[in-house]
């Protein structure tokens, strides 16, 4: 790449179109030396989170993780090595950077108290403590070890879970363990819809 980079400095106008009045060409050789914005990035392979074509993408991040530096995404484009997309992407995939970097991303836990008309910020610690409590209370109240006919069912039907279609297999597997640990049967995802 180095030789190509240096060559950029010499890209110049040919000026053939400039037959000027005085018969010579003043369309001088003009260097265009715009910095390639992905010249100094870290590249990570990922998969587009939208539809199920499964396009591979290259995420370009900048920032070396020094103590004050958090890597940030500067560009995302298709991964040419993928036989599926061969570097191509659709309009959604091509704007994935906007998704990752969106200023409307949630960055802290929010809590809405019963009857409240606003969100309030809450710490993770507080949120986890309260959520664990809610889950346990509901489980204690609703867990059925046996059904009406006295058959062992070990199930929890007053708590339901949904989601997982943009979570990885591994997270879905963990959600499955979570679900069966709790005894939850009502568990649905986007495949149903």
């Amino acid at each position, binding site marked *: 790449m180095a030789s190509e980079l240096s060559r950029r400095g010499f890209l110049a106008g040919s000026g053939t179109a400039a037959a000027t009045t005085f018969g010579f060409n003043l369309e001088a050789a003009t260097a265009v030396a715009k910095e390639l914005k992905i010249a100094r990035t870290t590249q990570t*392979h*990922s998969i*587009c*989170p*939208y539809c*199920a074509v*499964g396009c*591979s993408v290259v*995420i370009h991040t900048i920032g070396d993780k020094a103590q004050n530096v958090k*890597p940030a995404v500067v560009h995302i484009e298709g991964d040419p*090595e993928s036989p599926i*997309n061969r570097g191509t992407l659709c309009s*959604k995939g091509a*704007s*994935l950077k*906007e*998704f990752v970097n*969106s200023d*409307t991303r*949630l960055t*802290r*836990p*929010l*809590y*809405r108290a*019963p009857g409240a008309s606003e969100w309030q910020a809450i710490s*993770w610690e507080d949120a986890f403590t*309260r*959520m*664990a409590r*809610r889950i*346990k209370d509901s*489980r*204690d109240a*609703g867990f059925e070890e046996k059904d009406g006919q006295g058959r062992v069912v*070990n*199930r929890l039907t*007053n708590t*339901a879970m*949904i989601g*997982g*279609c*943009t*979570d*990885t*297999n591994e*997270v*879905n*597997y963990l959600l*499955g*363990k979570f679900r*069966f640990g709790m005894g*939850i*049967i*009502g*568990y*649905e*995802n*986007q495949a*149903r819809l």
Partner: protein
Amino acid sequence: MASLAATFGRGAMTNGWTDVANADVVLVMGGNPAENHPVGFRFVMEAKRKRKAKIVCVDPRFTRTAAVSDCYVPIRSGTDIAFLGGIIHYSLRKGLYQANYVRQHTNASFLINEGFGFDNGHFSGWDEAKNSYDKSTWQYELDANGHAKLDPTLEHPRSVFQLMKKHYSRYTPEKVAEICGCTAEEFTKAAAIICTAAAEDKSGTVLYALGWTQHSFAVQLIHAAAMVQLLMGNIGMPGGGVNAQRGHANIQGATDMGTWNTLPGYLKIPRANMASLDDYLKANTPKALRPNSLNYWGNTPKFMTSLLKGYYGDNATKENGFGYQWIPKAGETENYGWGYMFERMLDGKIDGLISFGMNPVANGPNTTKMLAALSKLKWMIVAENFETETSAFWNAKKLAEKYYPATGEPSTIATEVFLLPASCFAEKDGTFVNSSRWLQWKDAALDPPGDAKRDQEIIGQLYTRVRKLYEKEGGKAAEPLMNMQWNYATPLSPSLIEVAREVNGRDLTTGKQLNGFGELKDDGTTLCGNWIYSGSWTEAGNNMARRGQDDPTGLGLYPNYSWSWPANRRILYNRASSDVDGKPWDETRAPLRYRNARWVGDTPDYKADAKPDAYGSFIMLPEGVAKFFAADLVEGPFPEHYEPVESPVENALHSSVNANPMAKIFHAPMDKLGTSKDFPYVGITYRLTEHFHYWTKNTKGSSELQTNFFVEIPDGLAKEKSIKNGDPVRLSTARGHVDGPALVTKRFRGLQVGGKTVYQVGVPIHWGFVGRVKGPLINNLTASVYDPNSGTPEYKGFLVNLEKI
């Protein structure tokens, strides 16, 4: 997916994106890949460019896919079975089917019990009082060994082939035209192209998506497509198959990992009547219906035992049935699917809901009902990238009162909501499974923003903390909770690498990773989190992260790129790509060849060293062959045209049975249905290429491409109503309404159905009451009407009215 599992044995896209380039005919119906899967569509364009493939597009709208197709046929939403039934009729009448394939690889030759029939809208066995079928006449006639009887000549009047011929004799081109609203000429032109794939050396693919699954007879509809493909000999062939284009990055994987009625790997959820593991295995391990059936599900005990070892580890012993009793059990006939879930929620039977990245207010049918149901919850946990309509459901009054006048003020809604900032794809590692069943590993590129956390940490924290509470305080039924293995190196945030290795499975005696599900045992010496993924992370390492570029067959299978379930097989049922003697139907396009007593090429969907004629070619089915006749489906073994539950016309085949008699319709107070008197037009919903679901209304790029919601209206109807492009209009159903500017177009045509012009009106999904760009939620319009097999709501084809406002 229920349909494909019933027909072929597995509920997944049969072939794959890259393989579509091998097609000679592409039938796009019930989907719009040019807009919704543009990158997948590149293989359609490659087939068109390189193989001169013909594209047939059947759709209510002239879509971008239609724009590049060779043959476009407009049909009324929800008449697809009539169209496909017509293709079956056309193919059988003209003899345009692949006879050898049909004889060798399908159940066309199987005999059905006496008494099976179809009369005036119902199959035999209909019980009007119970509103259900007695399926005894739908079964194969069995011999003394319990094997199905055959007539290889296909002449027997009770053979599946003859029954099929009879059933579809009513689906003449004229009838199809009358029902669908196209002309008979348009239909036959399409049929002729589709049937060119009947030649042994031609293959055709079917691409579909939610335009098929979102009907009250969706599973039957997809079964009809599968039948067409079997007639054409297209299953197992490169460039063939029935290819579901799934709409979310890991919808396949999430389903593979289980939904309410399945465990990982499509093992069925235990029912209350299956008290022990033995009972469960007895009920769920099928018996071969033919002597030569490989009947792979016969290995269910190995899959289930290994899963239980994965779940309960050392706590799962032979003595305690490997912990089977801790798995929750549903009642025999109970259904906990989406529609039932929200019905029970509305009835106040659910306290808490945990949502990982799902948005029922936006994507569930009848938004008013979704809002009402959620407000009955005591608590809700939502892990998300953005604030969603669901997490803000309690604020709907303020944010969108005009659409939800009946919804309560926040002060009246007692639901406690936790909205947790989760990480997005770029911030997580792990695997997505695409529509082609390819498991592709990705790495995390950066950390989540601000205080956002990775999902595994949220789950790990919650699980560990609930457990701690039980340890400290005790509580009800601690055993299932405590015995679940959560022994990860960092239990508060399990490493996904560790999880992926567990999902692949290992031999507990050697401690080595398994090479595949062939090594699974039912004695508790193997552990495997999902048997179909076994082989994904072997001793050789993470196969899902492979990037090999070689393609030895030249068919775009790329065996060393990522890893595909099952067993890295790229084309399902590939054994059917050759005849019973192992001779490929098309020598130029053989994914599999039998050489030196082994099958080479793609991973064979067959025993790797078995002779060509040793087994049937569909190893996941007890029949050993693919099914035209599928008694597993609840409304009939053959697909029959039923009108959508809300339809503007009478069923032209049997007016006494208009809609699917088995369709699940809910009747909560807000679940109203309309009639064509008040709502004379047909409404459909769809995605636009510019947006993804309800997410990209938060991103700048997509918001620029399509900022505004709109209502797409045929120019004929617009003229009648003097609506001009851009005029504000209201679209309403018995459930609710949406307002937006009109987009008047020629691409929507008025259709002649039963002597009257039926207009269809369309609305794109994508908008909502939170986000960078806002608009109405189109599920204000849709009804709580579901397919009885899959539990998917009928989002296509409902009755609407249109007014200028």
